[in-house]
């Protein structure tokens, strides 16, 4: 949720995820914001971090795609290939 993400529609994605999370009753899911991840031209982006697995970055999202990612990946554990960019983390330091 940096300026670039918000301009591309991140608020709608966030709202969809908040609603899905509330509906799902899941107790082990934490929804959190972060800011610009660098690839502004592919915003809105979402990163799913599951314990013990490489984080997965999704790009070019809409509220609809976000709902799909929530049910298939967050709840179902299956990566949604059509909107996934890559898995893993960037080189820091």
């Amino acid at each position, binding site marked *: 949720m*940096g*300026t670039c993400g918000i301009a591309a529609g991140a608020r709608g994605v966030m709202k969809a995820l908040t609603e899905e999370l509330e509906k799902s009753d899941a107790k082990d899911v934490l929804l959190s914001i972060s*800011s610009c991840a*660098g*690839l502004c*031209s592919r915003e809105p982006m979402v990163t799913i971090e599951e314990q013990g697995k490489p984080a997965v970055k999704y790009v070019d999202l809409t509220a609809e795609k976000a709902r799909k990612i929530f049910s298939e990946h967050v709840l179902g554990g299956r990566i949604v*290939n059509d909107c996934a*960019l*890559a898995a893993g983390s960037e080189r820091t330091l």
Partner: protein
Amino acid sequence: MPHITNVMICTCTNCISNGALDIKDSLEAEIKQQGLQDDVLVVPTGASGLCVNGPILIVQPDGIFYQKLKSKDIANLVEEHFLKGRPVKKLMYVPPGEESPIPELRSIPFFKDQRLIALRNRGVIDPDRIDEYIARDGYKALAKAVTSMSPEEVIKEISDSGLRGRGGAGFPTGRKWESRRKDTRTPKYVVCNADEGDPGAFMDRSIVEADPHSVIEGMAIGAYAVGASSGYVYIRIEYPLAVKRIQKAIEQAREYGLLGKDIFGSGFDFDLQVFKGAGAFVCGETTALVASIEGRIPEPRQRPPRTTLWGKPVVINNVETWANVPVIISWGAKWFSEIGTEKSKGTKVFSLAGNINNAGLVEVPMGITLREIVYNIGGGIPRNKEFKAVQTGGPSGGFIPAGFLDLPVDYERLAEAGSMMGSGGMVVMDEHACMVEMARYFVAFTNDESCGKCTSCREGSYALLGILNRICKGEGKEGDIELLEELGEAIRDASQCGLGQSLPNPVLSSLRHFRDEYEAHINEKRCPAGVCKALIRYTIDEEKCTGCTRCAKNCPQEAIIGEPKQPHKIIEEKCIKCGVCMDACKFDAVTVV
């Protein structure tokens, strides 16, 4: 030179019977077509073991596996993967048991060559939660500095690291701190310059939005080093989200005792406040910035004497400079100074914008070439257009042409090429950019933003703009080029602050590298890029026009006539040269002459 990428194509009997040789031929042809033959080598190999899914390709060093290829897939594959650096998921092999063919993040060219120091927490933490910053070693460097290092040791560490200011001029940070440390007047101040007024630049905004605590921690360390107990974050009001995030971060740091009295029980006191600027470009200049904080008109003044705030010593550093400080204290000067070039250490954040596939924010080690930034990280120019120039340093910088693409990016090299590092805006231009018009755009900006104090800057920019306007309108005269050069040099020499001193740069650098474009405008009344409206005409090619009527339907001026299925024609008197017809035509029949 070795090839950057090797494409292993399996040419076992099985794959050949599946068409591997055809695939190999189309691959090689396509690679050549895209001009990638020096970067990508096609290597025939023996059986890979998965040949039931053949023909098979393995791309090294990425380790990406493509299967069941058909000749018709190749053009798209070469363009997407080798040119733009986006592996084509639908052609990838999925190992049994693994559900995901998604590539490793660090194998994607956009991310591969980046190294995050200032942006170390981007996209991974919630900027509104101090705990997340702390969980990633946040405020550890501040603890180390105030509890185990003397101020002199902190300054030595920063000096030895080779850190130079990221706000434009590249002044050695350690040296700046040392001079303020030695100044005996008190109290002292530290300021973060988050004014960021250059068009096309968004590095500092992104850092403050993504990781505000990195700036606060850096400032606290700097304050300890120079002996300051209060500071300001000077940020433009046009950055509302960044303002909100930094304000919240300051409150949280206070709550945690990381700002305030007796930080870490060391006896060191430091607090910070946000100062919202009204958003004038000149307010980023240090003497104007302090005038603005003091409530005066933000007019720069002659230096020396050194900039002061309320008549007291002040350290002003850029957002990115501050964000680097905690890492240097944690990891040490030696570690930091091993990154980069001889005189430019560490990394630099650039905002990539303009005609580029991957627009965004990138952090790269100093010394990386412009070519790597534009083509690998940036993914090249959209629709395979020709690269023309990259503009660095914003309105104070210059244009760097294709011949300099292999230039390593550091403070000295960019200056030698007639541009400057500036704060990190990088605007890429393709063949359809007119350099005279671009120079005119930047001069119009600086003319507008000139505070008006120095005649050379106020009137000089006005005069430059007048000449450039004339040239773009086709009213250029012999002698204009020489006049632009003479005027440019005079403005540079006679202005007090960096705004005036650097405003001729876009003109002088475009004259240096693209003089022929000025000459075409002036002597032949022609705009080679087809941009300057007074010098161009749109026409419809009768041979290519199918009479589909799309252009006529889209023309806002009803300036296009013609019967359906018959070639159309543009009525020149009505045409406003908006280019809508050209975009609408599916047959490339509309051209600019």
